[in-house]
């Protein structure tokens, strides 16, 4: 028999009752029980607790519980549907904005390439023989600066004022220049409008609602 005290025997007694005690430990416990009335009482008390625990009272399940839960889940699903739609709208709007921004970048790159080619041609042909080209390029650069400043938010001309500016100057633009200008105008106005919609009053509120 080991020198284990009665306090340490508590776990051994429980293991014995739950069938988790090794045979050798079981023999040791049995030997101790023969001489210890306190542990014998504990054994009976534990036996009583372990026998009674599985039969503690159970409630009856309320009638209609499943239906109540399913109704609550339906309500949740109905409440979440508009959120999902709003999230979809935001996704579409952002996608359109990114596509337009990309288109703008492509247009700007093409224009710069065109102007660079024109300036280099001017340099090659000589200033005296290309005054008209110089004047044309200066005007194009002026429009570009105006449009870039619009992007930066310094100037916010409308499409109408832009068109009036073009009319006032009245200079004939090359076909290439007019095309680039039209693309700029369209992309910038649309991009500005979408950015304003997405980031000012509407988009942020909807996004926070979704999250």
């Amino acid at each position: 028999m080991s020198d284990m005290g009665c306090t340490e025997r508590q776990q051994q007694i429980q293991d014995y009752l739950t069938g988790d005690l090794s045979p050798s430990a079981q023999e040791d416990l049995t030997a101790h029980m023969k001489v210890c009335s306190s542990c014998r009482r504990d054994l009976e008390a534990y036996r009583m607790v372990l026998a009674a625990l599985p039969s503690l009272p159970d409630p009856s399940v309320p009638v209609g519980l499943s239906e109540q839960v399913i109704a609550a889940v339906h309500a949740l699903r109905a409440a979440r549907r508009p959120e999902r739609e709003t999230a979809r709208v935001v996704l579409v709007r952002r996608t359109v904005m990114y596509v337009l921004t990309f288109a703008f970048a492509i247009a700007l790159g093409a224009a710069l390439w065109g102007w660079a080619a024109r300036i280099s041609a001017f340099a090659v042909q000589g200033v005296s023989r290309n005054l008209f080209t110089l004047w044309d390029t200066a005007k194009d650069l002026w429009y570009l600066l105006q449009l870039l400043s619009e992007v930066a938010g310094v100037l916010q001309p409308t499409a109408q004022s832009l068109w009036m500016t073009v009319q006032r100057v009245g200079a004939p633009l090359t076909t290439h220049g007019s095309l680039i200008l039209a693309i700029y105008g369209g992309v910038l106005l649309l991009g500005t409008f979408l950015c304003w919609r997405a980031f000012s009053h509407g988009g942020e509120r909807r996004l926070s609602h979704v999250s």
Partner: protein
Amino acid sequence: MSGPADDVALVRQCLKGDEWAFAKLVSLYSGVLYRLAWRMLRNEEEARDAVQEVFLRVYRALSSFDQSRKFSTWILRITTNHCIDRIRRRRIKMLSIDVADKDDTYLPVVLVDGRPTPEARYGRTALSETLDQMVLRLPPIYQAVVELRYKQQLAYSEIAEVLEIPLGTVKARLHRAHRQLKEKLQSSGIGPEALDL
């Protein structure tokens, strides 16, 4: 409860938007969860709310359920944790078993009932009622282990999985719970002699 494979099949159906599948899961588990919630909370209204809240959480988090695991374990974990949270929130109003040791207002009720003792049938009823109240006064983490072991009849390993604790911790908590219940029972005067066991 249905088989684990059936449950996972239902979960997959739910994720495809099948409302019938979710209703089936609710009908399969609402009773089990209600009994567990009631056992831990001892209030019908609160147990109903708890079951509803658990299913709403399950519905929201169904896509994050690991389908290689048992659905029953997952939903029992959510329920147990939810009930423990609820108990902790109202804990300040509850008596712990330690306080009850100094408080004899409950236990003497059984002893002064006036019926002839010892009498086995009465004794067993008294034991069951007394023990039931004692389980309720256990700390929530012990109570959860006792409920899962004896009322849900889970193995130690399953309890460890539900509560996400090591197997040794499950056994230790169960031993401590047994010991507290045994000591309380002995101090109440209800013993094998009184029950004619």
